[in-house]
């Protein structure tokens, strides 16, 4: 009797759930957790927990890096944002993929040769400074938390779609709790296997529904051709059955052409505040130049931010040698490059087939086009396709959030606890703190994630990348290639650029979720709005300039054995310099 009355609200909550969609999502979660438990049995030592015992093959590692990298932003966010804003959003997938090239060209090889568990290890080893390590650890946590927010939004949107009765925060809390449990049980060894598996789920889940949709409703080029470009009087393709656009949707010519709604929003808002007769002149003068500035700043943030993301970099250490690290990067570029062709197709098809999404806000807006659109196929096939994309979305936010949680918890257990608070902690105690740390950090991420329902997934990732591009990227790039860097210079540059970007990001996010009312201020200062929304174009140079100037001023404190350090960073591993370096540093060096 009593149990029945408890069941009733639970059943009401399940009302309206599509069984196919529920089944696919459920299987993904169960398999993920099952693999976590299974591999927990295999990983026993602390070293296993932190970097998977450094023995992961190229194929596995490339799939795992790609799996971790293709987050909710890639799986759901790009499609939603392409649908909302059109051409300008294509920079996101392109730069997400190309950031890897920068990593490969300048950073991956040297860092791997230097050999360390984490970025803070690198910071300490390169400058012989435990203080710098602490600063670097704080940044791992900062960037990590900013990057967890979009993943949590993805979780909230997906669960609100699967269970129409569930509030946004409920989805965030449920998914966050499940992943946190999984990480605290499995560590990174488990994650490598799970991540690799999840890459292939995501690839399958984004490509198969696209092909089915295109087979039914017409191909990518046809759907794009149904939108008139600037200078065309009519769209070239007429055989595509378009649903009528709603009022909130951007018009064809703005949507399909560069410098559209995304990059001109700030100037548009400023023009709206002007008297009507001045508007046209103001737009003509400022719109395109400001858009160009926005585009370049976005490119810098995304390309350099990739090279600075802590949870991606840590994976280079799981390769057996430098050559394998390079081959891994090549495979990652191929795996993610192929993937990134697909999400924009969802956005393009969504514009023609599901325009009613333009009117939704938060969890009901365009961010869910990947989940919703396959249903347009109709019947059981539509439900199955939608179930497949839901499974992919689960794989996306679960894998990225797991990876972040591992790297943040690793920083916490390995650095903050193991080196700062309790340097004499036994391995078992560190392992225990890893589990506690995972739970605390997971809980904070859930609270942060529940606040950001109205922000676009992709936009939040962009903000995390801007911070990474202005802190870690200059640090790594300059430390590897310029021997004149001092610890003071590196720390000043990293903090100066990183905190400047963080301040901009914080202001924009607080303003956009309505905690602070800045709309009027931004409307009167469109240039400031762009420079705060996309700070990388000035914060990254700021960081590098600070590094050079301060390092020159403190030149005497360049580490005395800098030539040896540079040799370890650059000489081929076959020469065995790393071993020599470790032996020299052995007494009390803390490596």
């Amino acid at each position, binding site marked *: 009797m009593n149990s029945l009355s408890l069941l009733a609200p639970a059943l009401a909550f399940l009302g309206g759930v599509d069984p196919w969609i529920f089944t696919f999502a459920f299987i993904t979660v169960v398999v993920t957790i099952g693999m976590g438990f299974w591999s927990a049995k295999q990983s026993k030592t602390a070293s296993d927990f932190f970097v998977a015992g450094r023995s992961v093959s190229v194929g596995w590692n490339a799939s795992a890096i790609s799996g971790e990298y293709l987050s909710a932003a890639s799986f759901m966010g790009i499609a939603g944002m392409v649908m909302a804003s059109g051409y300008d959003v294509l920079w996101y997938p392109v730069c997400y*993929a190309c950031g890897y*090239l920068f990593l490969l060209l300048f950073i991956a090889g040297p860092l791997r040769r230097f050999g360390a568990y984490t970025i803070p290890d690198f910071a300490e080893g390169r400058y012989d400074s435990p203080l710098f390590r602490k600063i670097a650890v704080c940044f791992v946590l900062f960037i990590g938390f900013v990057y967890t927010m979009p993943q949590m939004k993805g979780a909230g949107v997906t669960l609100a779609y699967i269970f129409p009765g569930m509030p946004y925060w409920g989805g965030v809390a449920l998914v966050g709790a499940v992943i946190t449990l999984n990480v605290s049980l499995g560590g990174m060894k488990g994650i490598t296997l799970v991540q690799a598996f999840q890459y292939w789920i995501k690839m399958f889940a984004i490509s198969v529904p696209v092909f089915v949709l295109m087979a039914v409703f017409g191909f990518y*080029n046809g759907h794009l051709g149904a939108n008139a*470009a600037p200078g065309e009087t009519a769209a070239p*393709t007429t055989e595509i059955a378009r649903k009528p656009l709603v009022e909130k949707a951007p018009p064809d010519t703005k949507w399909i052409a560069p410098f559209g709604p995304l990059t001109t929003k700030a100037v548009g808002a400023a023009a709206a505040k002007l008297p009507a007769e001045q508007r046209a002149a103001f737009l003509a003068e400022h719109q395109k130049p400001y858009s160009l500035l926005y585009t370049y700043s976005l*490119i810098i943030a995304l390309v350099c931010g990739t090279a600075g993301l802590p949870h991606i970099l840590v994976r280079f250490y799981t390769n057996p040698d430098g050559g394998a690290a390079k081959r891994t990067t090549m495979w990652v570029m191929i795996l993610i490059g192929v993937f990134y062709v697909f999400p924009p197709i969802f956005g393009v098809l969504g514009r023609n087939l599901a325009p009613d999404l333009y009117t939704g806000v938060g969890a009901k807006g365009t961010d869910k086009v990947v989940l919703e659109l396959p249903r347009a196929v109709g019947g059981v096939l539509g439900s199955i396709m939608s179930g497949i994309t839901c499974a992919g979305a689960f794989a996306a936010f679960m894998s990225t959030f797991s990876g972040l949680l591992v790297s943040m918890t690793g920083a916490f257990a390995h650095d903050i606890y193991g080196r700062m608070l309790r340097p004499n902690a036994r391995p078992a105690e560190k392992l225990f703190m890893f589990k506690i740390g995972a739970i605390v950090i997971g809980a904070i991420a859930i609270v942060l994630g529940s606040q950001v329902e109205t922000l676009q997934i992709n936009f939040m990732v962009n903000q995390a990348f801007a911070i990474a591009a202005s802190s870690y990227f200059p640090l790594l790039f300059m430390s590897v290639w310029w021997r004149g860097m001092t610890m003071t210079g590196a720390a000043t540059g990293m903090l100066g650029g990183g905190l400047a970007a963080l301040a901009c990001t914080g202001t924009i996010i607080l303003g956009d979720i309505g905690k602070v009312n800045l709309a009027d201020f931004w409307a009167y200062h469109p240039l400031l709005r762009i420079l705060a929304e996309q700070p990388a174009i000035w914060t990254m140079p700021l960081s590098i300039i600070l590094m050079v100037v301060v390092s020159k001023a403190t030149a005497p404190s360049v*580490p*005395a054995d800098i030539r040896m350090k540079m040799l370890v960073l650059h*000489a081929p591993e076959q020469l065995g310099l790393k071993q020599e370096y470790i032996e*020299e540093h052995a007494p009390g060096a803390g490596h």
Partner: protein
Amino acid sequence: MSHPNPPADDAVHSESFLRSLMRRQLALSTTCAATFLAVLLGMPLLNYFAPALMATRVGGFTLSWLILGVLFFPFVWVISWLFIQRSIALENEEVAAVRKAKEAR
């Protein structure tokens, strides 16, 4: 500091070896990066100064959309493949040079 630089008399630890090592590696990386950046940063300029050309239709796509949404990825694969080949060859040359210098002594 208690760890001075090692003596500069043998080939591996010499200043000139490190300089040539870093210069050759950086030259390779910079060449690849410059090729990539010319295309990446050139795209917005083309969009800005030649909007009509970039709006040309190619089988339904606009030219700009086709390049950025599809063709850019294979282009990046080619650059990274070339870089990896050259970079592995470079390392092998360096190792061979050091071994030769050691045998000669």
